[in-house]
């Protein structure tokens, strides 16, 4: 499905979001507050400014690889991230500053790409795919740093798709339930239900005890 023909992507273009000033939340790791805001860069991108686009890609590539890794799986995450940014470039004329933040648009495009991928390969076991090798890290480093994280990712992969997406956006991208609802095109109470069921399921999967002692 193309981004252009996907109603969920187009809808965000018409949506006046309530958190357009969430600039603090827009800054990924390594981005300081005095850097050019995403939306200002995107306006330059619309004029064909490749340097501005490089800044946006550099700023957000980690979060999109991470999102794809958690929603789809590790083997495809980098390819998906590349596709997402190439789509953004190809569709750059569709973005408008009044239609929502760049980050909202980015998440929408990324999630649509992730959903397309999970459905395309729905017969393939997601957890069968190995992590890609990053030559900059030693195998020992990757093992030490990744063992617990891999266990969490494996548990997240066992959640139903919408719970997986909601949990990932809420905890890993540090968005609020309202933000997640807008990105997923759901009502806030529906996202709250996804978050509750997802968190309870992850407690079970990760062997965490329920402090209240009640049923999950």
């Amino acid at each position, binding site marked *: 499905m*193309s*981004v*252009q*023909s996907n109603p969920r992507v187009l809808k965000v273009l018409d949506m006046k979001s309530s958190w357009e000033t969430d600039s603090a939340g827009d800054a990924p790791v390594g981005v300081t507050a005095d850097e050019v805001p995403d939306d200002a860069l995107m306006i330059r991108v619309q004029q064909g400014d*490749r340097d501005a*686009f*490089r800044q946006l*890609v*550099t700023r957000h*590539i*980690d979060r999109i*690889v*991470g999102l794809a*890794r*958690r929603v789809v799986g590790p083997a495809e995450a*980098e390819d998906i*991230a*590349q*596709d997402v*940014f*190439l*789509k953004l*470039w*190809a*569709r750059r004329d569709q973005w408008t500053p009044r239609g929502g933040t760049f980050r909202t648009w980015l998440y929408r495009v990324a999630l649509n790409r992730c959903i397309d991928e999970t459905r395309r390969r729905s017969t393939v076991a997601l957890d069968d795919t190995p992590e890609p090798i*990053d*030559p*900059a*890290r030693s195998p020992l480093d990757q093992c030490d*740093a*990744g063992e*617990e*994280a*891999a266990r*969490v*990712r494996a548990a*997240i992969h066992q959640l139903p798709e919408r719970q997986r997406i909601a*949990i990932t956006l*809420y*905890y*890993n991208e*540090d968005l*609020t*339930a309202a933000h997640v609802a807008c990105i997923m095109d759901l009502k806030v109470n529906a996202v*709250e239900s996804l*978050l*509750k069921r997802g*968190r*309870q399921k*992850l*407690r079970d999967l*990760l062997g*965490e005890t329920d*402090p*209240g002692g*009640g049923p999950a």
Partner: protein
Amino acid sequence: MTPNELKALIDIYGADLAKWPPQEGAHAKTLLAQSDEARALMRDAVAFDAVLRNTGPVLSPDRRRFLVDSIMGRLDDTPSSLS
């Protein structure tokens, strides 16, 4: 707010009160100031939030640079191939 109500809200919103609806967050802060049981629930929730956020490092600087260069080198690909 009771400890049970706090737990129900933690199940939805996690341990970061800044992400809770403001009124519920205020009630939770009041309860946390008064109740050992509530503080124990919140300590557990903070620990579990940390587990959920631990999905590992993503990209090394070299890998990030490689991917960015790869994307920038493909900007002139035909858009139809990406749809």
